[in-house]
């Protein structure tokens, strides 16, 4: 077991859980596309926190940290692609409101 006291791990995991739920609810509730993008990033960072906290418990290998590196890199790429799509969406429809995305119906 890592140097951390047992119950402190729960604090971190609790925090990660709370952050994740905030991100998920933010994604589902908010209509502005940029806010949805931000809430996805929030969810990813909550997962990072959980990984680092758990890695502290399973002390010997650096799996958790390695995972975090990859998540950060992929999140950056995801944001790049996401912003490009949002930009072209904004260019075409003049708004970032996801309710306006109703050209495809039926």
């Amino acid at each position, binding site marked *: 077991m890592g140097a951390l006291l047992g119950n402190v791990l729960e604090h971190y*995991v609790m925090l*990660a859980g709370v952050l*994740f739920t905030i*991100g*998920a609810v933010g*994604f589902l509730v908010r209509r502005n*596309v940029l806010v*949805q993008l931000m809430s*996805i990033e929030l*969810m*990813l960072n*909550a*997962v990072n926190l*959980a*990984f680092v*906290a*758990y*890695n502290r*418990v*399973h002390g010997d290998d650096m*799996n*958790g940290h*390695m*995972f975090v590196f*990859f*998540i950060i890199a*992929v999140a950056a*790429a*995801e944001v790049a*692609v*996401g912003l*490009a*799509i*949002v930009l*072209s*969406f904004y*260019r*075409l*429809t003049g708004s970032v409101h*996801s309710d306006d*995305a109703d*050209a*495809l119906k*039926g």
Partner: protein
Amino acid sequence: MDLVIALSPLLAVGFGGLMLMLAEAFGKPSEEGISKTTGDVVDAGAGRGAELGLGASVVLIAGAVMAVGVWIVGPETLEGVADVAPYLLIDRFSLFFTFVLCLGGAFTALLGGGYLPEHRIDRSEFFPLVLFSTFGAIALAMSGDLLSLFVGLETMSLGVYCLIGLRRGSARATEAALKYFLLGSFAAALTLFGAALLYGATGHTDLVGIGEAVATIGQPDSTVAAMPVLLALALTLAGLGFKVAAVPFHQWTPDAYEGAPTPATAFMAAVVKTAAFAILLRVLLVGFGEERLMSWGTGWPPVIATLAVLSMTVGNVVAGRQESVKRMLAYSSIAHAGVALVGVAATIRSTEDATASVLFYLLVYTVSTAGAFGALILCGSRGAEAVSYEDLAGIAKRHPAAALAFSLFLLSLAGFPPTAGFFGKLYVFQSAIDSELYVLVIIGLVNSLIGAYYYVRVMVYMYMREPVPGAPVAKPMSSGMVTSAIVLAALLVLGLGILPGVSLDMAIAAAARGG
């Protein structure tokens, strides 16, 4: 050195992608390419769609051939494979999937090579993107660890988001890309959180380690708590459910399929779904393969069975009422995901047969869907793309070959005997009956009845209906690449339908000896 041989399909596709990027950047635009572009920076790849398409398909077919080569060499004998083991498992299971994914990618590249120049979409980034997405899909199918699962999933998905949003001018394509992007990254975040909980509970990130740790739940000395594992199971199922487009998570599919250019839709329907099933099978059978989790009472089979029933029923019923053929094919791909889920649910008792049936079904599904979309592309030309039923009215008189090809693929999707689709469905339902899931089989068969209705409805429009005088009529286009893709798909559909012996034994071998 063995490692390079073992990973040859993956490296070929990746290296091919890089080469294609450079070729596209440094190639000189074709003369008619320059005249068309209005922007100040003349796209180097302008007007080069056909050549790049051919290059991409050659690379992907080479990948497929290498996969068969490594299969013949026998991945167990190559000892270099152990170095990269927990992250990329090179065994018969992943080689079979590599073959299917490369085949699907090759079809997409061929269709794209014909479709893009025809509809003046001059974004020839299409082909490097197809290569990189297939690279991600193969990595996903090969991955034996949550890390490479996530990286493969994201590489594939990012490529597909761009593929959809390629036609920047059209609001429909951008909107489709936006919807798929939002839901796709949401699904990836769910899967990730599941992975974090699994890592926390078991201390392993590789699937086999997780499987063994999960098996120790309940024993006195086990350090693994049941709660996070069950929560992780739910989250992973939700995340992969999005990717597989099972019903409760399918809202994005019709819009994404309809908005995207048709070759991209073929790619999503064939390759993305197959790769998602590959990883779903591996995660469920290896990560959560322990008896209690796999039993009908306490484990995931009832969840998968409900997903299957919902997907089949909703997919078929809603597909029947669609007006656009592309949207109908989107809902029918949801129904086919449902049938494959029946195979996954059937793994509770006859694991080998059920896994082999899912593998074979996915091979048949990839070929038939790619062929169907190819024929749909062939039926429409520049201004008059064939999308709705009315566009296809009376096309059998104007372009009998395209109509015949389209009917063949529709019959294969509907599951009529001489074609491969029937055998795939039969094999899945037989393994479901071996696991005594009678209700599932009955529902599946009734759904294939509904499915037969709307597949034959397209044939009715093609053969028996006259085009409404005023309506814009889709003129069939002539493109060598699309025709060659269709002929290849037709040969495979009939070949697998009449003589499925060889590929069937490969599927069984792939499912049986994991190592």
